[in-house]
């Protein structure tokens, strides 16, 4: 079957519809999670005083709100009812009313302002902790994590908390309001109050039945939404591959399925949300009817003041409105708890590679690198490097060569301690990399990575990168050394030209040159070049080598390359295969000691690994036998 004759909507067998990642996407729990709330309050503690103050303003707002109907009641009973009409008291009452609303205004303004501001601050703080933590977690974790899924936590979940903070102000006020109303009602007339509160147990009962269903619906709506976002993000990131491989239709129909699921789930959740409206309203109606009937009878018998009855009627709204609101807010609370959990989950990712408590700063080193019996792998029980030992002397340049997947890049990662070794030790400048601080290690070891990565920004910003104070002359010198100066000058704004995302508006070779220049500007004692010139032609490469040999005098180099020309300039060559060192020595040594390298050299292959497999096997065997 082919793409063209596929029926739209059918799911092809080899297409992932859901994506998985290391930490599960779908953690959604209750509306109140003690752990989350506790962690969250930790972030609030710096603002303790402000929060206490804001609680006072909430109190002011709620109490004044409760007082208003009470004032109305007194006005009616003491100034308006037939027989006691009194304009003076009316004026006093009205003045009281206006004073109260003035206070209410102050309370309202301050509560919104302060809590709103604290909220924004705290959110930024939370996002910052998450982001900062991601700067420290080990690459082994990052390798397995999708940027999109982290971004959805950094943005979406933080956003969900924001919504929560907005409603919690209202929520706390509502609760105070309800309590205030209940107290006032009992104070006014306990009989009527009892009658009215009588409907509350019914409401609670209904909620208990409603909750489990509603929760399921809300959870489903969140899960489907996050799947939809993930799928959109992936499509955007890989859009070139999508268009190049004409995968649009398939992806669209897959996405439609996801989006439709989401629509259905959200509709269902909405139904559960709105169903509470008539229920609460029915109860409101019952309460009102009770007041009218019971209260009316009492009034007519002279057992109750009219004002009390009016006050009750006004209070009924105040009482049930927040209750209805709280039900609505349930889904927001629950989403916030889920979001909180997802945020704290990131903050809690253990850091595998971290500084020892007594880690020293690596300074003024000689520039040597040593691997001692190193064994390492990415997946447990699947070693990629086995028992690797070698030493690079200060100032020496060593080439690492070997077929694809033999572990060259892995060795450079270990030198920089992106990962910790399983067995053995790695020394840089004579110090075990585990005993020095990571940042000082980075200041000594510069790298040009196999995949060039540039940031959105100008050319010069990219070359300077961390060294923001690096003078222009040094930047230009570095650019010249790697042969990038010419093309930079031809860009519309020279060194100030903007690079798009990942350097998308320059060619790959040019990107590689810029990332090379960036490493030179960093001016480290040790420089690791992982196929730094793989996307550059040999002539340019030769020019680079010439310039570099001057620039990098006295520094230690580790070079990975497939081209003989690149390798030849190294002082010593380490030959790697399947994660083992099979040969090592200087160019001259290797040529004379009838080993693999000499075979290769005499065979005149243009690239080191341009050798038939059987020959490598044969030579390797000879060579090994020679050792034993």
């Amino acid at each position: 079957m082919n793409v063209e004759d596929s029926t739209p909507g059918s799911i092809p067998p080899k297409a992932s519809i859901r994506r998985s990642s290391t930490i599960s996407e779908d953690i959604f729990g209750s509306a109140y999670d003690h752990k989350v709330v506790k962690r969250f309050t930790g972030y609030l503690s710096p603002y303790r005083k402000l929060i206490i103050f804001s609680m006072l303003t909430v109190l002011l707002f709620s109490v004044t709100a409760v007082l208003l109907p009470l004032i109305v009641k007194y006005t009616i009973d003491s100034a308006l009812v037939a027989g006691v009409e009194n304009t003076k008291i009316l004026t006093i009452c009205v003045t009281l009313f206006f004073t109260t609303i003035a206070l209410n205004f102050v309370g309202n303004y301050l509560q919104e302002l302060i809590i709103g501001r604290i909220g924004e601050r705290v959110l930024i703080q939370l996002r910052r902790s998450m982001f900062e933590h991601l700067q420290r977690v080990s690459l082994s974790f990052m390798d397995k994590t999708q940027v999109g899924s982290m971004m959805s936590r950094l943005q979406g979940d933080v956003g969900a908390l924001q919504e929560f903070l907005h409603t919690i102000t209202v929520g706390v006020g509502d609760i105070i309001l309800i309590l205030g109303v209940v107290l006032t009602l009992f104070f006014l007339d306990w009989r009527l109050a009892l009658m009215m509160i009588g409907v509350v147990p019914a409401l609670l009962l209904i909620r208990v039945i409603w909750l489990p269903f509603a929760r399921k619906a809300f959870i489903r709506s969140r899960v489907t939404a996050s799947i939809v976002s993930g799928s959109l993000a992936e499509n955007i990131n890989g859009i070139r591959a999508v268009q190049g491989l004409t995968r649009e239709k398939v992806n669209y129909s897959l996405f439609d399925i996801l989006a439709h699921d989401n629509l259905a789930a959200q509709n269902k959740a909405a139904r559960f949300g709105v169903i509470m409206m008539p229920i609460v309203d029915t109860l409101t109606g019952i309460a009102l009817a009770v007041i009218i009937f019971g209260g009316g009878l009492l009034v007519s018998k002279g057992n109750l003041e009219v004002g009390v009855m009016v006050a009750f009627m006004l209070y009924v709204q105040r009482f049930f409105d927040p209750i209805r609101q709280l039900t609505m807010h349930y889904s927001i609370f629950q989403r916030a708890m889920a979001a909180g959990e997802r945020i704290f989950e990131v903050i809690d990712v253990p850091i595998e590679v971290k500084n020892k408590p007594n880690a020293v700063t690596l300074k003024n080193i000689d520039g040597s690198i040593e691997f001692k019996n190193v064994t390492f792998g990415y997946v447990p029980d699947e070693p990629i490097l086995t028992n690797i030992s070698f030493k690079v002397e200060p100032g020496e340049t060593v080439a690492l060569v070997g077929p694809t997947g033999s572990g060259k890049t892995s060795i450079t990662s270990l030198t920089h301690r992106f990962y910790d070794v399983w067995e053995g030790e790695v020394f840089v400048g004579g110090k075990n990399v585990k005993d020095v601080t990571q940042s000082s290690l980075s200041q000594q070891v510069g790298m040009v990575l196999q995949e060039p990565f540039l940031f959105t920004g100008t050319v010069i910003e990219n070359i300077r990168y961390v060294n923001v104070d690096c003078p222009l002359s040094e930047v230009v010198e570095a650019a010249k050394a790697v042969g990038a100066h010419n093309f930079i000058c031809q860009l519309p704004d020279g060194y100030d030209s903007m690079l798009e995302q990942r350097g998308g508006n320059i060619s790959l070779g040019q990107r590689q040159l810029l990332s090379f220049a960036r490493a030179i500007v960093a001016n480290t004692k040790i420089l690791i070049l992982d196929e730094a010139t793989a996307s550059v032609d040999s002539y340019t490469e030769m020019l680079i080598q010439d310039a570099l040999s001057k620039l990098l005098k006295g520094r230690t180099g580790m070079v990975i390359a497939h081209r003989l020309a690149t390798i030849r300039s190294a002082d010593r060559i380490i030959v790697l295969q399947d994660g083992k060192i099979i040969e090592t020595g200087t160019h001259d040594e290797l040529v004379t000691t009838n080993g693999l390298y000499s075979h290769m050299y005499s065979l005149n292959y243009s690239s080191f690994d341009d050798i038939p497999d059987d020959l490598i096997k044969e030579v390797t065997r000879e060579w090994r036998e020679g050792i034993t």
Partner: protein
Amino acid sequence: MTLKPKITNRTQISGTYIRIIKMALKQKLLLVFGVITIFGAAGFQLWIPILLGSSVDIAMDVFSAENADVSDQLIFSGVLLLISSIMRGIFTMAYNYSGESIGQHIGYELRLLYYQKLQKLSFSYHSHIHTGDLITRGILDIEGVSMFVRTAVLRSIYLVVLIGTGTYLVLSADLVLGIISLSFVPFAGWRATAARLQLRSSWFALQEKLSILSKVMDENLGGIRVVRSFASKTHEMDKFDRASEEALTIANNQVQIKSKNVSLIGISFLTAMGLVLWVGGLKVINGSITIGELTTFLAFMSILQAPVRMLGMMVNAFARGAASGGRLFSVLDMSSDIEDSQGSTKLTITKGVLKFKEVHFGYEGEHTLNGVTFEVKPGHVVGIVGPPGSGKSTIAHLIPRFYDPSSGAITIDGQNIKDVTLDSLRHAVSVVEQDSFMFTASIDHNVAYGNPWAEDLDVETAARNTQMYQYISRLPNKFSTMIGERGVSLSGGQRQRLSIARSILLNPKIIIFDDSTSSVDAATEQKIRVALQEISRDRTSIIISHRLSSLMHADEILFIEKGKIIERGNHNKLINNNGKYAELYKLQIRPDDKNKSEKIKNER
């Protein structure tokens, strides 16, 4: 030539609302239902204060009526109240549900439209718009529009109906009190409008800042290896802090606008209520109205309280809806510069002859390609070499029409690629990209990305032909092994080979390898090429490479510099030419002594 697309966010604001409303109008049934139920909800809502007031009067009529009668009347109005409350609840539920549902349908529709749009937009758009920005629009802005529809559209109708009918009722009951009780409406309306305008521009600003923030985070996480290797944590945190402080300032400003206006609207409402109490009280005292009538007014006002409180939220939703809608529509309205032309036909491949005729092209008005002419016959291989930035990838990108040449023509079997459908063209042509993207999925799903209906056997064959089979079969989960984002859990060469496998699985007539074996050792590459030759004798291939052994055997080799072909011919001819190709060859084939490279350099 392609123009740099500028995304403007401020499309006409009123236009934005109209477009959103138009989308809502498509949900006719729900909308009609919603509007009808709004009238029900508002009607019953307004009936309640009337009932309340009259029952107060009934209770007070004790002196003038029989007790039994009072109790009957009270029961009657109690029952009426109960009924109207229930009806109010049901109608409120109904209109709220239609609002929710319409909003979600619009969200769904926008999501699909947006997705489709992004898939159609050409490479030149995508390279100018940051993915973080697109993702933010696709998630937060769609949510913004949907939320606007959900919470604000029907509710504002409700509010208008409620206040409108209420106005009529209270004014006809008592003109003075009526005017007083509604006196807050103009003020509240003024504040709400002012707040909406202020919030709208601040939402624009905030979304922009948040986009910047997400760019910073996205690039940091995407380039985490660079960040780590330069120990640039502080530098990156600085960038983050700068962006987030800017966002915070705007957010704080928003909080300020909201608190100010919400509380102002609140107090204006309460002031009106106080005035009703005062003036109404005076009227009761001089006997022109009853306490019951006063109660009606007060109850009416307390019923308005919740909607007035809602007003703040609605204003925000309106503002955010406009900002988000503007940002969204600006993407949806972009026309792709690469589209099927009118009357385009399916590409029919007879032989597979690819021709470039005097092709000129520039990304942004520059001259990247200056008159490139060549031809590839079926079964033939053309090799392209040249320094970085000479335009090799650009040539590759023109063939599947990722970009269109500014002049000249590219034809396949005599058909100009501009006149055939994109779909048929891209099925016939496959480019193995220089930096290929791998999806977070299993190995087989990645290999079958272009044809997810492929059989296991096809996937296996593709893996064998790219020398990946051995490696994959050693993995514990074989073809089901998940590979990380962009293929992080693979070595450079493995990633490149997987991307070749992905392309050859499609069995395209024309295949272009853009430096796709730079990290693959030459021995492995040799094997791949032999395998490919066997399965595709009549395929048309272009190989771009810096490694001459990869294209030495090509039928024709083009040496490109500054967008021009400066040398062409087969290997032997070019070597005899003793030009730049020959220099490269000397450098690569036997770089045995320094002298030679010195010599070459001096010669140049």
